[in-house]
């Protein structure tokens, strides 16, 4: 599903973000990416959806060879990947429904499908009754659930979540994690970068630890492994 082979990433300012990274993530896995701030977690995530390109090495995602991917083909790669951020990134002037539908409209989904799948996605995240609320009328947890509905509405093969619980209180964080686990059960691969040790320790999924751009640990059913 996702394969990194000898991947290096050096930014123009000379920062070495990743060094010789080799990772294989299988279909339907749930993977936590952990490590100190600035260790290269975000770079790792951005390389998956080709926000960044590797300086050296090869990456393939869901059958796309990212090194050979022409810029105009990037949109078709991204349709296989749902991305979730710490800061939700919803459009403030659109309702929950419109925010989710927007993701389908812009990939030119036929109109009759948009309504059906948008409502399904909102139902899955438990927000069908708040479809007409604006983001400003929703709590943080609800906003993140709208963002998750938006990420899954196009049926991606992979969800890339960069600190999705970073702005949420512990209880809300757990709701989000249950939702992600549910989505994972339904067959979507999930790669999630996090600093939340409680979640990582409780969920017992595969853990990949990155420090100074190097993978220092990769365990199935691992633990967070850092002092808080």
């Amino acid at each position, binding site marked *: 599903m996702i394969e990194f082979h000898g991947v290096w990433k050096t930014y123009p300012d000379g920062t070495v973000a990743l060094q010789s990274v080799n990772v294989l993530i299988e279909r339907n896995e749930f993977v936590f990416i952990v490590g100190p701030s600035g260790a290269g977690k975000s770079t790792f995530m951005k390389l998956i*959806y080709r926000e960044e390109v590797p300086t050296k090495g090869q990456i393939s995602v869901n059958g796309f060879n990212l090194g050979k991917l022409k*810029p*105009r083909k*990037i*949109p*078709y*790669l*991204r*349709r296989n990947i*749902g*991305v979730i951020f710490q800061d939700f*990134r919803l*459009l403030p002037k659109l309702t929950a429904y419109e925010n989710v539908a*927007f*993701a389908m*409209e*812009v*990939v*030119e989904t*036929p*109109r009759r499908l948009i309504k059906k799948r948008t409502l399904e996605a909102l139902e899955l995240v438990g927000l069908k009754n708040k479809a007409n609320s604006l983001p400003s009328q929703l709590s943080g947890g609800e906003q993140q659930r709208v963002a998750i509905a*938006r990420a899954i509405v*196009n049926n991606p093969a992979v969800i890339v979540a960069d600190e999705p619980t970073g702005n949420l209180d512990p209880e809300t964080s757990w709701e989000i994690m249950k939702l992600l686990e549910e989505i994972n059960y339904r067959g979507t691969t999930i790669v999630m970068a996090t600093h939340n040790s409680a979640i990582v320790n409780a969920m017992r999924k595969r853990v990949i630890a990155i420090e100074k751009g190097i993978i220092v640990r990769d365990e199935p059913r691992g633990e967070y492994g850092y002092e808080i």
Partner: protein
Amino acid sequence: MRFSTFSRHIREGTKSIIRNGWMSFASISSIAVSLFILGVFMLLTLNVNRFADQVESQAQIRVFLELDTPEEKIASIERQIKLIPEVKSVVFVSKHDALDRLRETLGENADVLDGYEAENNPLPDGFDVDVFEPRQIGVAAEKIKALNDTDPDKSIMRVRYGEETVKQLFRITNGIRNIGLVIVLGLAVTAMFLISTSIRMTIYARRREIAIMKLVGATNGFIRWPFFVEGALTGLIGSLITAAGLLAGYAQVIRSTRLDLGLMMFDLVPLEEALGPVGGVVVGLGTLIGIFGSILSVRKYLRV
């Protein structure tokens, strides 16, 4: 492209024009002004060309003699002109005839000639010369002028024919047209930059949406389209206003000059004939300027 996608682009483009308010207004006005000037010059050129055709078709040479040329001399010159092979006919126009003609042309304003009678008629005697072929008119005119070479009195004062007038007319209008073209070009470039600034504001206002569109896999074309629509629509609106104003104004000009020009045996290009070229160029060019303006901004500021 799906119809729903297309209508979405149109909707988004229109929304941006409204949202950009004053900036859109400035773009539309500047397009309108530059195209208006262009349109005026086009109408001018159309009419000058028509005028030239009308003048040329009146393929007649007018020969003016020096004042007080004796009658025998006049008769001899008339004979010599008749001998020129290109010449079809020669008609003597006495200075009295010339004065009557001038009175006729001036119509109601003929009173300026009051006081000029037979004794103090300032006009020269002359001939109207017709040729067989309008194309030969220049050659014939040169040959008539050349008659002076063998005449010690140089009795022929002037030889005039349509083409000469036309040439002079073209020299003047070409000058005006070149200046006009420079002005129009300058204004068109200004309009283009205003539009591109307007589009840049839209891109900035929509950067979040654009970021999300990229993230969920909207194609570059899909992201760019609304901006092209915005530019093209701005240009289209500006040029439609201009075209409507120009043609309404021109219709008024035709109405109010019909009588005067008719007396001089000329008429302006009718509205139906001007509508196609002027309207087409103005609207087409306006839309193109708009699209180029948006391309400028999209290439520079929309990193997709």
